């Protein structure tokens, strides 16, 4: 399986049903976008998991740096008033 080293890495997102968002399910190697979609179909939707597939080259994802964690996320810890827990949820609203 040495060829894997030459194929770029792709991140795979699957939408499991209509109305839900695409969710990251894993990654795989492929030569281009079209074959990444085919591989994703074969690797991640064999058991009827999805209705839509997105693939993104792993190198194209811009991610936050672990070193910035404190500056980015810690300030939100103490601001419980930002949670919308004081509102009743109307009946019949799903996936909120």
């Amino acid at each position, binding site marked *: 399986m040495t*060829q894997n080293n030459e194929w770029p890495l792709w991140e795979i997102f699957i939408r499991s049903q209509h109305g839900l968002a695409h969710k990251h399910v894993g990654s795989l190697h*492929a*030569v281009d976008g079209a074959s990444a979609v085919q591989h994703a179909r074969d690797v991640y939707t064999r058991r009827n998991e999805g209705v839509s597939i997105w693939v993104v080259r792993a190198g194209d994802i811009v991610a936050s740096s672990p070193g910035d964690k404190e500056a980015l996320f810690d300030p939100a810890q103490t601001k419980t008033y930002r949670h919308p827990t004081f509102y009743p949820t109307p009946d019949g609203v799903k996936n909120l």
Partner: protein
Amino acid sequence: MDSKLSKFQYLLRLSDNCLVLSQQLAAWCGHGPALEEDLALTNVALDLLGQARLWLTYAGEVEGLGRDEDALAYGRDGPDFRNLLLVEQPNGHYGNTVARQFLFDAWHQHLLAGLCQSSDPRIAEIAQKAVKEVRYHVERSAGLMIALGDGTELSHDRMQEAVNKLWPYTNEWFESDAVDVQCAAEGVAPAASSLSAPWRASVEAVLNRATLAMPAYTGHQRGGKQGMHSEHLGHLLTSLQFVQRTYPGAQW
């Protein structure tokens, strides 16, 4: 020819193509050139096995002698198999397997599209399920043909060699014998020769994109549909049927 007998024979041809090719592809499981390819090819093998089961079950019902899918898959000897010679050709290297798969898939999709219109509703139903799977198979194998044919000099030469080697096995499926004539006359199946032009067009389009040449016709092999096989089938059946031959009727 008796209409029941011809339908039974025709169903065996359909099932045995799928069964033998599935067994061949299964040998790649765990040995594919990349994890993603390995899984994809095994998926194709499983699709074909599923189709073989549907055809075999119906063949047993048409025959009416109480043979089920297992009896037909594990209890027949080589000369009773009705698969095309193409599908029993050895796996070889991955390029040989890809070329064999593409040449078969391209034919299989046109055949199944024709069988969707069968006068036998059961055959039409099975074909409608199978044709969706096979449309994906041909998309995949055509993509690999193009990637490898139009790849490096080495991969191009290997693919051309693979196609040339298999070419003599791509004619018998267009020839009609008494079984084909009877099934076509009753509207059970499309005429064997009617698939020739669409198949050539599909193959030519992909070979062109793959920068591969259509091999020239230099004679061809026939006999698979009538049970005259190459030596390869015997070896394949030995491993396919080993358990049931050793422990007849074993279940788990």
